[in-house]
């Protein structure tokens, strides 16, 4: 904390950007650029975990259902950009939507002319739907505490995943494939095409850095303090004039947005999405990653979750993938509930001869 104050505020971001660039250069030099695909996916997953860091680490509210928001974002985009709306094409509404570039004409794989929603419009729809669902679930759920909130969000996630598996519109157990690229602006396009791999890696990096910056600003403000106050002592926070219920709902919504945003990008990047993204295990995994990164430590959760997801996506853990996550959860919570980065940071500070005020005080007393 005190160390952070002494270093220029943007330095960690520059450092992080430096690491991101050198990773790519390293992979180019060693001819392993194909690994960038998994790294990009891990970065998108990390956005979900960043949202949980805010919700769980700072506001102290548990969610075991954030995979569902990721899926809601991804599926809304996927359905809207692949579903054929040509039946609407001749109605006046359809014409109007086409003029507004909400509906766009193109050809499917068989060369038939189809009408689908444009990725940007689908993105807006996804965020809108996420907002609706998050408010609907968050409003009653956030009046609950601890176990009840955990179960309510878990139940919500399970309902979403069962609905996705059970519905033909969302491709049932197969999910949705053939999601088109998402042209962001100019030549920037979110797509999984090999030629655009490096570009997409940097799109993900930029998005993560931008969100990190915004969230860090948020946490170092009255809002961040209000959230922390709710986490520490809800009653006292309320007595200080903080509308705790409203803040909890807002931060829940924000974390749901982050998850959905990640879902949309992820879906366009990989070209599809499956029902396992909404599964309880995915949601639990996000929580595990947040815990592994130290829960309240924005940098910690981002770095740890990117690294672990990357390792998992590259298949480093083999058939022990789930077991590794389970063991990781237990070990970290048992030995270092603040996350492994904090003790590591303290150790580094000691080595470097830097001291915390609190440590000095402890030594004096």
């Amino acid at each position, binding site marked *: 904390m005190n160390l952070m104050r002494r270093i220029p505020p943007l330095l960690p971001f520059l450092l992080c950007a430096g690491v991101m660039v050198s990773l790519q250069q390293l992979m180019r030099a060693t001819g392993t650029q194909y690994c960038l695909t998994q790294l990009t996916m891990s970065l998108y997953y990390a956005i979900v975990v960043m949202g949980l860091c805010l919700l769980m680490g700072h506001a102290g509210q548990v969610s075991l259902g954030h995979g569902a928001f990721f899926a809601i974002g991804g599926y809304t985009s996927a359905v809207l950009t692949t579903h054929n709306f040509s039946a609407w094409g001749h109605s006046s509404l359809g014409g109007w939507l086409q003029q507004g570039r909400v509906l766009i004409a193109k050809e499917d794989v068989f060369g038939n002319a189809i009408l689908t929603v444009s990725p940007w419009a689908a993105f807006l729809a996804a965020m809108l739907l996420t907002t609706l669902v998050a408010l609907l679930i968050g409003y009653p759920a956030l009046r609950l505490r*601890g*176990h009840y909130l955990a179960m309510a969000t878990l*139940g919500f996630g399970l309902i979403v995943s069962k609905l996705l598996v059970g519905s033909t519109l969302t491709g049932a157990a197969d999910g949705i494939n053939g999601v088109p690229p998402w042209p962001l602006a100019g030549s920037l396009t979110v797509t999984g095409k090999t030629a655009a791999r490096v570009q997409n890696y940097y799109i993900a990096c930029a998005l993560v850095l931008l969100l990190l910056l915004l969230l860090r600003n948020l946490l170092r403000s009255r809002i961040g303090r209000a959230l922390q106050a709710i986490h520490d002592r809800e009653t006292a926070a309320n007595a200080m004039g903080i509308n705790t219920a409203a803040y909890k709902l807002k931060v829940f919504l924000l974390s749901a947005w982050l998850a959905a945003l990640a879902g949309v990008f992820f879906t366009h990047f990989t070209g599809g999405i499956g029902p396992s993204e909404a599964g309880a295990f995915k949601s639990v995994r996000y929580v595990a990653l947040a815990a592994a990164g130290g829960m309240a430590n924005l940098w910690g959760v981002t770095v740890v979750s990117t690294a672990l997801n990357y390792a998992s996506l590259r298949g480093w853990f083999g058939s022990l993938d789930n077991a590794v996550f389970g063991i990781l959860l237990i070990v970290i919570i048992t030995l270092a509930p603040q996350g492994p980065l904090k003790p590591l940071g303290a150790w580094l500070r000691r080595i470097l001869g830097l001291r915390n005020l609190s440590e000095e005080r402890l030594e004096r007393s």
Partner: protein
Amino acid sequence: MDPGNLALQYFLSGITKGSIYAVVAIGFNLIYSATGVLNFAQGEFVMLGGMVAVTLAQFVPLPVAVAGAILAVAVVGCLLELLFFRKLRHHSILHLIIITIGLSIVIQEAALHLWDEKVRSLPYFTGNEISSVRVFGAAISPQVLWVLGAVGVSVAGLHVFLRYTLKGRAMRACSSNPEAAMLAGINISNMRTLAFGLSAGLGALAGCVISPITMTHYEMGGGLAIKGFAAAILGGLGNPMAAVVGGLLVGVLEAASVRYLPAAYNDVSAFAMLLLVVFVRPHGLFGAPAGAQVREH
């Protein structure tokens, strides 16, 4: 078959599954009351019970295998308490939730590697899969009677234990007021271990009797835990006996939804009910609303 009969058939199958949920819910409650931990790994006890019994049954007679499985899983339950929860008692609820989730994953994975991903089952305790007895005109498998009987007896036994024996009363004292219990000379830590063991043993029993009907599979625990939790909440958390009613309700509702909803939405109704209950009546159907929530800490 006439519609009334069919309804009875569904009802009985609901009661059968529901009684398993009830056992899981009782297990939840036992541990929750004694330690304040909501054990997400509760369903794994059921799975382990079935798995161990299936393995033992290859070498020893069925009753011995079942008894061995219950004993083994109870030991596992005690060990979990000794190894993890005893040390972590002062962690936050969030941390404890995550630990139990982690344990659940690890137990599942251990079962996958110890056994495999195949579906197994114990033989029918009496008769076989086609034998049936007629109850009120509905044909049911004798195993259903085994399930209902075993659950009924163990619930009654537990009730007697908690209410009339010294140990049981000590356990209840621990849950209602740990400090006072400690002052009265009760060893709270041992009570907590006992609660874990008891709840694991009960789960294992349920896992054995249900195995011939629903089969045993390494992944079965998660779903059971969630439905068992729904049952526990429905009855009111901390009230083991009300959980029985909760469990049966969840089971019957699930059976009814199989009848009226597409198969793909099978579990949706159970989870939707869980959400509804948690939102509308978090203290459960039989629990009293929590009093003044002014207490800090």
